[in-house]
């Protein structure tokens, strides 16, 4: 089973939920994939050194100047402005390239070949008693995270439970991260920004036909808007995690969240039960 933990708005508690879920599942076969590759932080919670680090590449064009006639076809076909033909050469901007291969296929001189461009790494970390954490880490300066997220998600396809800690937003990165999941937890907070982005995230789930439910973090009692939204859209509210400065302080120190808020264990167990019923 693949469970995505997404939010829309950043900082609502995706990583808190993902890592606590992993702890409560208490099964060494669980794999947590930190797909928030621009700022992965699930590793901070477990404080373990990675066992292995593998480099992830994607293909980018390399021009052979011996065959290139500077005709400009490659720059004209590129949808992402990754190639610029100047009077004496073709300049390639790897960070703009989406690896579509159109320039390679259409070069009349066959002067373009594809070469590997490193875009980031995947770090595998063993978390004693909890399973494996696979962290995607995008190289600084890379504009495109989806290819790395895709590579992260190919980790441990046979694991009985895979949790995907998703990037914030509802852009290509979030879509790539939640794609193919059996269930998606949307972690939200009762603030105008949290609500705004939650609505967008719900639309994304509907488009991709992924079942999901809401987890209200930093809950402070009044959640009329979220209850109405849940009723209107059919996405249930699975849990309400009360606002707790103690939990926040403990989490920031990297201390055990289940000790700072013991009822979190019950809340998580109940979330897992509801997911199993829904899937």
């Amino acid at each position, binding site marked *: 089973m693949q469970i995505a933990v997404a939010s829309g708005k950043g900082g609502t508690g995706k990583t808190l939920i993902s890592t606590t879920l992993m702890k409560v599942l208490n099964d060494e076969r669980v794999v947590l994939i930190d797909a928030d590759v621009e700022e992965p932080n699930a590793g901070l919670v477990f404080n373990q050194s990675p066992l292995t680090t593998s480099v992830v590449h994607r293909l980018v064009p390399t021009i052979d100047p011996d065959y290139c006639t500077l005709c*400009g076809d490659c*720059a004209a076909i590129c949808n*992402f*402005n*990754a*190639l*610029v*033909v*100047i*009077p004496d*050469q073709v*300049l390639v*901007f790897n960070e*703009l390239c989406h690896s579509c291969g159109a320039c390679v296929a259409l070069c009349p001189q066959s002067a373009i070949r594809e070469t590997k461009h490193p875009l980031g790494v995947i770090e595998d970390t063993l978390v004693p008693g909890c399973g494996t954490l696979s962290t995607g880490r995008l190289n600084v300066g890379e*504009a495109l995270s989806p290819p790395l997220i895709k590579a992260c998600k190919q980790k441990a396809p046979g694991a009985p439970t895979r949790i995907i800690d998703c990037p914030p937003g509802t852009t290509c990165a979030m879509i790539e991260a939640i794609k193919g999941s059996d269930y998606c937890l949307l972690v939200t907070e009762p603030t105008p920004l949290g609500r705004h982005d939650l609505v967008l995230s719900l639309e994304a789930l509907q488009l991709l036909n992924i079942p999901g439910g809401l987890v209200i973090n930093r809950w402070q009692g009044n959640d009329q808007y979220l209850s109405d939204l849940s009723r209107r859209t059919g996405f249930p509210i699975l849990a309400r995690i009360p606002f707790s400065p103690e939990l926040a302080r403990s989490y920031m120190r990297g201390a055990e969240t289940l000790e700072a808020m013991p009822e979190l264990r019950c809340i998580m167990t109940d979330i897992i039960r509801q997911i199993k019923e829904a899937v």
Partner: protein
Amino acid sequence: MIKKIAICSTGSSPSSQVDERFGRCACFMIWDPETKDFEPLANPAADAAHGAGTGAVQTLLNKNVGFILAQRVGPKAFAVLKQADVKIYGGIVGKTVTEALDSYRAEALPELLSPSN
């Protein structure tokens, strides 16, 4: 062939205000020193998700532009323009296209020597 001058503009008239942005400016007003005339060219890269700067450069190189009047130029566009030996001049904020061109011809505009965006 004499190189042309491109002015980043918010509109397609010589009296339009200049656009500070290079890659995402609405329009390029391309001035031909031979005909002494403007040719407005909508910037096809203005709404590009990525690579607006490099796309805009390609458009201008295809038009035989050798000089650009712009205020803010990103690092990628700047690198290409440098390689292609295109000179960039700033100091155009608040001017119309015609005023910017007049200042350029009076050699009153500073050359941009590093990316500024």
